[in-house]
């Protein structure tokens, strides 16, 4: 049983290492993809990495809900207060202004 357990542990160790490598690779790829100069935050020339207001209305029922969009620079801190005291959200940026707007209902 001891020998079998050691063998299983070695296999799991190899599988975990494989997952670590894949996660690292995917994280880098996603960062390159989303932070690609063409897709840089506040791009000089808009790129195809966008959603339309119509898209937002398709995921939220516009007759019932309003949608507020927050565009913030990386590392912006979003804090939600304790809901038992207040429904409060604060957003604080250190790298640039934050844009907030309501998605138009129609």
């Amino acid at each position, binding site marked *: 049983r001891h020998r079998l357990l050691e063998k299983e542990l070695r296999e799991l160790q190899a599988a975990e290492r494989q997952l670590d490598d894949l*996660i690292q690779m995917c994280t880098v790829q996603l960062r390159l993809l989303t932070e690609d100069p063409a897709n840089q935050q506040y791009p000089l020339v808009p790129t195809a990495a966008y959603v339309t207001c119509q898209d937002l209305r398709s995921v939220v029922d516009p007759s019932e809900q*309003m949608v507020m969009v927050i565009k913030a620079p990386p590392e912006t801190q979003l804090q939600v207060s304790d809901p038992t005291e207040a429904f409060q*959200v604060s957003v604080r940026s250190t790298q640039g202004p934050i844009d907030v707007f309501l998605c138009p209902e129609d």
Partner: protein
Amino acid sequence: AQECQNLETEKQKRIERIKEKRAQLQELLLQQIAFKNLVQRNQQNEQQNQGPPALNSTIQLPFLIVNTSNRTVIDCSISSDKFEYLFNFDNTFEIHDDSEVLKRMGMSFGLEAGKCSADDLRTAKSLVPKALEGYITDMSAEFPWINQRLLSS
């Protein structure tokens, strides 16, 4: 016997860690598929419409959305340099990031729910590196894909 017990404990811990890492890898793959699918869709639309939609009708990634009832009253305080906002809601609200919005738009072909048609599965696999295609196939399968992947490796 004590050593076997220790090995068994270590084995369970490792299996738990592998489950968490599997979920993390799945999430990263879903985000990658959704992002690429969105860009492809937009590029096709732009070709059909001979150009991008009006600038004020598009929201570049990344973004957050806060949705709340139409009847909610929101008090908003803004610092003069727009570096700080404070929102007070008089009702409940929800916050979602862009990856969640893309999933709800169907940009990840329903893989997150394990429901994906054969055509969409083919398209999804074409959006990730070849080395990871197997994980996409497993993700759409019924049984836990990591076991199949572990066994095969």
